[in-house]
């Protein structure tokens, strides 16, 4: 294998540096893995045992109660379904709109670029605020609709800038080759440029999916029908404690019971809400490091 020869090319200083680098990386990885393992193990434990003894790898002490409760909760599955739908739709819409818009903005000959630049940049800093946005959504009749959650954030200027920068990094030869063949904008974009952009598409797609998956605030204020609630919102309703009104005893019992439940489910819900992302990730990963560039330039 080539491995041996690759390392051999490095000088001793370089090898030392590399070693240092690997150690750093290793430490970072450990710093991530250990808490994760803790959470996973904790999800299999009874909260009282956990509190008193800490986590243990003694399988005798493990229990599936938390998972049973979570899985049998139909609201969680509804939330799951909704989260998948919203995240996928959001991802698709957002990536399309962003990748499209970034293209003209990346061309140096595009007339009006400065003008549009300003229009977009302003929105990164100025906004109407919560109430005016809410009223707008309400007036558009989008309340309690999935689109209230998807449309406002679909176009992200930040992402557009990233895509634009990426486009600008694409070698000129590609463009020139297309011009030689007399390709129109649309053809060039879809047939030639995009395939080369798979890393940035994958990144943006993943970012948007994860962003929507983990969000709850917009869903909370715009959606009311419990059948439309996404997963994070459902989880939040399980985990959030409401302060009982002091003196109103009917609330006391309820709070105490709810808190017990939340403690039991805390870890299992963390796992369940994060698992799908972890499962999806490898699918995206293969696009990150494509060396497609190398082969696509003629001559």
């Amino acid at each position: 294998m080539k491995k041996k020869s690759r390392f051999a090319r490095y000088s001793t200083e370089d090898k030392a540096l590399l070693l240092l680098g690997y150690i750093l990386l290793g430490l970072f990885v450990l710093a991530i893995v250990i808490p994760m393992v803790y959470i996973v193990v904790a999800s299999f434990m009874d909260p009282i045992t956990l509190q008193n003894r800490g986590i243990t790898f003694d399988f005798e002490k493990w229990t599936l109660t938390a998972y049973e409760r979570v899985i049998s909760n139909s609201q969680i599955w509804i939330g799951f379904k909704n989260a998948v739908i919203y995240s996928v739709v959001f991802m698709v819409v957002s990536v399309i709109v962003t990748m499209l818009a970034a293209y003209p903005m990346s061309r140096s000959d595009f007339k009006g670029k400065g003008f549009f630049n300003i229009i977009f940049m302003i929105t990164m800093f100025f906004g109407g605020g919560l109430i005016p946005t809410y009223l707008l959504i309400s007036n558009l009749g989008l309340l309690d609709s999935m689109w209230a959650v998807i449309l406002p954030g679909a176009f992200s200027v930040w992402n557009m800038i990233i895509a634009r920068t990426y486009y600008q990094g694409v070698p000129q030869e590609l463009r020139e080759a297309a011009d030689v063949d007399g390709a129109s904008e649309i053809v060039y974009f879809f047939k030639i440029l995009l395939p080369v952009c798979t890393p940035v598409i994958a990144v943006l797609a993943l970012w948007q999916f994860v962003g929507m998956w983990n969000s709850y605030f917009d869903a909370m204020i715009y959606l009311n029908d419990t059948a439309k609630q996404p997963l994070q919102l459902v989880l939040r309703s399980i985990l959030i404690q409401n302060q009982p009104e002091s003196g109103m005893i009917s609330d006391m019992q309820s709070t105490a019971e709810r808190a017990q439940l939340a403690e039991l489910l805390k870890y299992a819900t963390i796992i369940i809400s994060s698992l799908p992302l972890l499962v999806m990730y490898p699918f995206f990963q293969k696009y990150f490091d494509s060396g497609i560039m190398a082969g696509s330039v003629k001559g």
Partner: protein
Amino acid sequence: MEKKSVTAKGGRQSLGEKLHNTVVYVTHHWQLYLLFLLPALILTLVFKYGPMGGVLIAFQKYNPFKGIMGSEWVGFKHFERFLSSPDFLTYLANTLKLSIYGMLWGFPIPILLAFLLNRIESTGIKKKIQLVLYMPNFVSVIVLCGIVRILLSVTGPLNQMLGTSVNFMTMPEAFRSIYIVSGIWQGAGWGSIVYTAALSNASKDLKEAAVIDGANIFQQIKAVEWPAIKDMVLMQFILQAGNIMSIGFEKAYALQTDLNLRTSEIISTYVYKKGLLDGDYSFSTAVGLFNTVINVILLVMVNKIVSKMNDGKGL
């Protein structure tokens, strides 16, 4: 910005010629406008500019029943209230310190990670490491703070490891570090994606050439990898600098305890408590506006500085 004119003559163009050129360009490249730009433009105009008039409530005593047009105007009263609040400077300082230190520590790490990853020869291992690095980003803020509290609790893992029983969450001195470190823990791996993607663009030929020339790692980085990501780095830097005042309140709020408020109360949590929880929308909008103005000033400054350093290339 350079504009290529269709009819390039020496000397300046008249208004008529400029107009003519524009019209020609636009009609020739109409797809650029209609197909590519339009969707984003519509979304922006409707959802970002639409509500912008709402900023006016910062200068009003907003009454939803009278609407924006009917509510009483109070000028800068809310701004005065905010700026004259006794703890204003503390909140401002806390916000700035959190951002600036956060950037100082947090900015280089994704870059470092991207470089390190790039040096991993085995793709199999590299992919596995990437998976691990990206994992923390998949948890939401609430979950992250839950994890942090668990790990830092008096009888939790960190204390057990150190053999102490310190209550980190109650120490104002610890808050900043907790906030920043947890931020790095969650975001560094993820943030390195852009750089990794950009690095994948680094021409392989250039790299081979550098190695053959006997360049050591530092020289290779300087010649090959850095140019590949330089633009991205600067872009990220400018954007983050422009967001210094906009630290979201969720995480700070979740990590606050009664005892660390001295360092953990930042502008956005203050606004949330005083403004939103009390339903005082005018006040919270006013502070938001204040925040924005500072951000913009910072952004413009940083952009100018970076542009000068980078031969005029900025945002």
